[in-house]
């Protein structure tokens, strides 16, 4: 009993510490970023949408106009939570600092990419992007085989970005919720489930009975924990992504590819001889078809996890795009305050549509989690399957 309480207290202390650090960092963020930016107050919808959808190197909450700069632009106060950056620089080695100290360490962010300070392409230069890129590619071809490093040292960016940081938050939330549920089973042993336990139990049982047990046969119980993690992680991430200030975690290909990669590894780890036989020498068809099937099946093997990654990413990103585009419509039609009537007129329509899309996204959030977990189970189940080769004899 005492042991359990000690653990609980430690967990609570850790959470408190995490929350405290978050606030502390937020505070430094406020100071570090104060009065740093002078910007044109006009909303540029494409920039805003991209800023919301893509990953960021800090956690931007809101910006407030606080005054006028000398250049005539508006001075903004950015409320941001700085995140830890971890960078491998081939010249300076491994560097670790908070995003609020980026400039002091000689780095800057442009268009979501990390650059050495002063090397980020200017916005104007960016418009001529394709030509610059072509020039670099031509140069690379001329130096065939030689690494072209137009920016000096090799930089590998392993910063804990907004998305990865929020993944940790989701993980902690899941731990908190399901440890409470697990505790409920210990406390209410031989009693009906109560509170959060009774809310989560049918969902847990749904994943176990209607996903794992249907498709995974004997190994169902072994993979149920993984499928549960997958399902709840994606679901909660998607829900978090629908709230203000937060990342669309599953709307990032980096994340969905990582999840699909685990599925792919599990497919390979569970594949039987029979599975590979069906890929490389399809039974029961003439030899020329066997070669054709080999190509088809090999593509299929790769396409399965790829489709998983793209489906999740595309669904979540599309939802965010729609919401942000509808909101941006107000500023586009209102010409950034030049035609206020059009802006105000658009607003109710945009808000109504956004509400509808939000409702849809709430459903999509759980459907995509279900689909990802379901297909993972289906693919692993297919790989484990052994067929009866009766059909061989008929040809």
């Amino acid at each position, binding site marked *: 009993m005492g042991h359990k309480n000690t653990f609980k207290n430690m967990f609570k202390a850790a959470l408190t510490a995490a929350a405290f650090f978050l606030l502390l960092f937020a505070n430094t963020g406020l100071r570090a970023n104060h009065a740093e930016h002078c910007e044109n107050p006009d909303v540029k919808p494409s920039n805003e949408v*991209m800023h919301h*959808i*893509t*990953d960021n190197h800090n956690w931007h909450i809101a910006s407030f106009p606080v005054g006028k700069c000398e250049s005539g632009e508006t001075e903004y106060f950015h409320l941001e939570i700085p995140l830890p950056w*971890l960078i491998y620089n081939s010249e300076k080695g491994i560097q670790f600092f908070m995003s609020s100290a980026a400039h002091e360490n000689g780095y800057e962010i442009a*268009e*979501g*990419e990390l650059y050495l300070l002063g090397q980020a392409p200017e916005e104007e230069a960016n418009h001529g992007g394709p030509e610059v890129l072509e020039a670099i590619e031509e140069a690379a071809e001329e130096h065939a085989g030689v690494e072209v490093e137009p920016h000096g040292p090799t930089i*590998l*960016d*392993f*910063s*804990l*970005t907004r*998305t*990865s940081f929020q*993944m*940790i938050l*989701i*993980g902690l939330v*899941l*731990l908190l919720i*399901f*440890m409470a*549920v*697990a505790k409920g*089973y*210990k406390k209410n*042993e*031989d009693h009906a489930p109560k509170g959060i336990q009774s809310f989560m*139990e049918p969902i*847990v*049982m749904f994943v*176990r009975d209607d996903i794992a047990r249907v498709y995974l046969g004997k190994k169902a*119980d072994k993979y*149920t*924990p*993984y499928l*549960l*993690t997958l399902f709840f*992680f994606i679901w909660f991430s998607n829900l978090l992504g629908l709230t203000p200030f937060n990342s669309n975690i599953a709307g*990032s*290909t*980096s*994340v969905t*590819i*990582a*999840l699909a*990669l*685990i599925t792919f590894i599990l497919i390979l780890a569970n594949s039987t001889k029979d599975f590979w036989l069906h890929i490389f020498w399809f039974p029961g068809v003439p030899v020329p078809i066997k070669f054709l099937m080999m190509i088809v099946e090999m593509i299929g093997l790769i396409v399965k996890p790829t489709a998983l990654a793209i489906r999740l*990413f595309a669904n979540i*990103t599309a939802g965010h795009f729609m919401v942000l585009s509808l909101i941006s419509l107000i500023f586009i039609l209102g010409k950034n305050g030049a035609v206020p009537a059009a802006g105000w007129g658009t607003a109710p329509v945009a808000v109504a549509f956004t509400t509808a899309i939000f409702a849809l996204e709430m459903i999509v959030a759980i459907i995509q989690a279900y689909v990802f977990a379901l297909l993972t189970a289906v693919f692993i189940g297919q790989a484990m399957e052994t067929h009866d080769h009766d059909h061989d004899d008929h040809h």
Partner: protein
Amino acid sequence: MEVIMPKLGLFVWALVIFLIFFFLLKKFAWKPILEALKKREEGIENSLQEAQKARDEMQNLKSENEKILREARAEREVILKEAREMKESMINEARTEAKEEADRIMAQTRDEIQSEKMRAITEIKNQVGMLSLQIAEKLLRKELADKDQKQAVVDQMIDDLHLN
């Protein structure tokens, strides 16, 4: 393109974070939850089976009771039948006996009556004989007052004796 292109850093972090939380959740949440669910399901399964067993036992007991009841009823039936038969036979026996007794008594009575009758008849005969003798005596006395008549009577009597 920026939206679609995966980034190495985020990819690595996503993989690491997901796997770490998977193992933590597995150890501290899924395992106890799934075990508790399994245990409860087994408990329910067991209770259901036990209930079925109890029901079967009850059924058995009931059918056994019914069998015993049926047997008892059959036995009663048999006993009653036997009793009825015995009663019948007893009555019949008694009746025959009584009849025989009555017959015997009747026969005896008849015999007695017969013998009494015979005796009475004999008596009457004797009486009649005595009376006849007395009458005859008186008559003779009267008749034999003279000699001739005495002779005639003796003759007559001798004749009669002959005739007898």
